[in-house]
């Protein structure tokens, strides 16, 4: 069907032809057009068996075209209309991915991270045995890791501002709430740093011991051991971004 972008003519066509046009668009990777073609299938032939399949394919195409909001709306409708359909697990999974890929950097609002967490948890609870649950579990860990990253970002801000109490509590929350994330070694090290700055020597020693026990090979432990013994961090701290304001990426 016409690929120019003026609104597609409302042309009645047999359902198989429309469906194949849409699949061709998917093949070519022209996802936005594909989504529109699948919508046409469902609009012109809502009661055909193709319509259900087209609904899901249109959502998939919106997802590939990074139009996450449209994908989520289409998926919600599919789940509501066909709760019993065999493809429903995939619909929940695709919805979770649509939130997951909008997660923004730790410095910004983490609403999408929370929505992704809930949606991924949904997939795992509803369809524990489906093949999507395994990947959802993996992505769930990364989402939780991201939440821990947010705590660390705020903790480091307070540490640099010499607000050591605020920093300690933020790093402690990572160690207590997010034990399985990749940020725990750094959180433990930051605790050692803060305790040393506060003069809480016993806490610094205990935390360095825990870090050594759980992450013996890490650079964080090397620094922690040195600091707990009264010295300075040993690994290269020259990664300092220098005094130039970090010029943002131009393009």
């Amino acid at each position: 069907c016409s690929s120019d972008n003026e609104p597609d003519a409302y042309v009645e066509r047999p359902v198989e032809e429309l469906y194949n046009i849409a699949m061709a668009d998917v093949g070519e990777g022209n996802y936005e057009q594909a989504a529109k073609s699948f919508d046409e299938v469902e609009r012109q032939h809502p009661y055909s068996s193709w319509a259900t399949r087209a609904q899901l394919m249109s959502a998939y195409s919106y997802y590939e075209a990074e139009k996450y909001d449209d994908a989520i709306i289409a998926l919600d409708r599919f789940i509501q209309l066909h709760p019993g359909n065999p493809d429903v697990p995939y619909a929940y999974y695709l919805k979770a991915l649509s939130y997951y890929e909008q997660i923004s950097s730790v410095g910004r609002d983490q609403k999408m991270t929370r929505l992704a967490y809930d949606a991924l948890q949904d997939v795992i609870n509803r369809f524990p045995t489906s093949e999507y649950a395994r990947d959802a579990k993996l992505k769930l860990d990364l989402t939780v890791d991201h939440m821990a990253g947010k705590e660390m970002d705020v903790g480091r801000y307070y540490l640099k501002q010499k607000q050591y109490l605020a920093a300690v509590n933020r790093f402690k929350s990572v160690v207590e709430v997010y034990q399985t994330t990749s940020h725990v070694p750094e959180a433990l090290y930051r605790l050692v740093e803060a305790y040393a700055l506060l003069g809480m020597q016993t806490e610094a020693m205990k935390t360095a011991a825990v870090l050594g026990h759980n992450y013996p090979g890490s650079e964080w432990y090397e620094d922690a051991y040195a600091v707990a013994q009264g010295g300075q961090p040993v690994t290269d701290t020259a990664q300092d971004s220098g005094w130039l304001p970090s010029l943002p990426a131009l393009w």
Partner: protein
Amino acid sequence: CSADIAPRGNEPAPELLAQVKPGELTRGDVRALLGSPSTTSAFGDETWYYISSQTTQWAFNATEELQRQVVAISFDDRGIVKDVRTMDETAGRDVEIVDRTTPTPGREETIIQQLLGNLGRFNKDAAK
């Protein structure tokens, strides 16, 4: 033009702190007397810490700590106060803060996207 000095954290009043003697009070008594601890030890026996400081910031200087007090109250296994120690800022050591950070993914907007993206109109649905 006096720099503004800001009180930080939880500084227990000296006369109340004096009442906390080893062997007498339970955790509940200490909380009633001094309020919730600023922080507790992450591992091992749960020691309570009351941390407070006075920071100042003047002109273009970074924030500085003028003075600091760390009160550590440890408890025995029956939950009775075992030991009360107070340290001031001299106990602290100057540690250089490591700049290395654990990487976190996430989308970043480039300058051009932002400049052209939202001139005048900030599309509401993106912000929802």
